[in-house]
């Protein structure tokens, strides 16, 4: 139980993949112009991270050390393909919106990072949970960036107009610079809220 709480804390704020480890923002910033897009992307990433951590952990004793990177990549790709086919079949419009970014989940450093840093040395259940929570921490950051961008950029949330008619859209927020500024501000705010306990290099992939 203690272990679960520790993993939970690490994923949400202590070692949050985005603002603490600066991992995996490449494939994510592009989809933060709409809340719905980021939500689907986040859930997709949670699915892939959780199941690939589980699989890596289950077969960790049978994987030769020197080819484990290749094995991990193949496991991740397999889950990403499942996700891609699922989105294409049930949410074709969403799949079109996300475009190549679903496939780019493969190169998202978070998944590989968790497989390498956690699942490789831990039991299957706790690895699955770790992947899930890391994905959740990632989703929360993504959604908070998307919340501000969609609100200021379109005056809407989840596509529903919330700001009145006389609201002037900040076009800048839906263009790429808006995403860079927002993620920079998120990093700033969070590092003030949760100061680092001790200075350490951190695991960079």
């Amino acid at each position, binding site marked *: 139980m203690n272990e679960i709480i520790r993993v939970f804390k690490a994923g949400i704020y202590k070692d949050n993949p985005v603002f603490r480890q600066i991992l995996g923002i490449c*494939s994510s910033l592009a989809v933060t112009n709409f809340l719905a897009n980021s939500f689907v992307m986040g859930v997709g990433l949670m699915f892939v991270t959780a199941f690939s951590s589980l699989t890596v952990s289950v077969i960790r004793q049978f994987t030769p050390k020197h080819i484990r990177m290749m094995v991990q990549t193949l496991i991740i790709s397999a889950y990403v393909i499942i996700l891609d086919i699922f989105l294409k079949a049930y949410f074709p419009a969403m799949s079109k919106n996300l475009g190549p970014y679903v496939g780019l989940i493969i190169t998202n450093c978070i998944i590989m990072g968790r497989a390498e840093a956690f699942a490789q040395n831990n039991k299957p259940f706790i690895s699955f949970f770790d992947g899930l929570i890391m994905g959740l921490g990632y989703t929360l950051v993504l959604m908070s960036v998307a919340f501000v961008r969609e609100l200021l950029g379109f005056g809407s949330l989840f596509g529903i107009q919330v700001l009145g008619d006389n609201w002037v859209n900040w076009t800048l927020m839906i263009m790429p*610079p808006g995403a860079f500024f927002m*993620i*920079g501000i998120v*990093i700033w705010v969070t590092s003030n809220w949760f100061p680092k306990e001790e200075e350490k290099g951190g695991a960079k992939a």
Partner: protein
Amino acid sequence: MIEINPLVIFFASIFTNNMIMSNFLGMCSFIAVSSEIKTSLSLGQAVTFVLATTSVLNYLVYYLILVPLGLEYMRFIVFIIVIAAFVQLVEMIIERYFETLYYSLGIFLPLITVNCAILGVSLFMIIREYDLIQSFMFGLGSGIGWTLAIVAMAGIRKKITGAKIPKGLEGAGITLIITGIMALAFLGFSGIVQIQ
């Protein structure tokens, strides 16, 4: 097949559709590496070379092998294997024949495999239905654009080493804010050439 002049694609992928500034791809190594102009330039060259070559390789694999067999959904796995294998091959060739180059590029080559920009270019080229020449120009241009961005960023980061930065913004925070300002500057190019 869309009729766009390959040269237009080349310039568009450097300026208006820059991989970092408008597609957010290749950010991981962009933030981690871009603090030294010389190493950034070496990494940029390696990325450009791999991008230009793998876009052609993946184009051939996709249209000559995957499409006839009806295995388009396998493209993620196949592309990543092609990229990983190619990077490994290049590393071995460079180590064997160009020793000095190996010592300046060596450590970056494995990093390239996980660079999102490489896979991103291959996926974009399939979605936008480019032909062979267009794909090559797209890969080459994206690589040059990426190099341009990372070298410019390294230069700026060198300038701000002595600056007083708010505590929470040090490191990645300030890099992202600067990237935002650079992206604003790159927006100024839009309208010169445009692809999608």
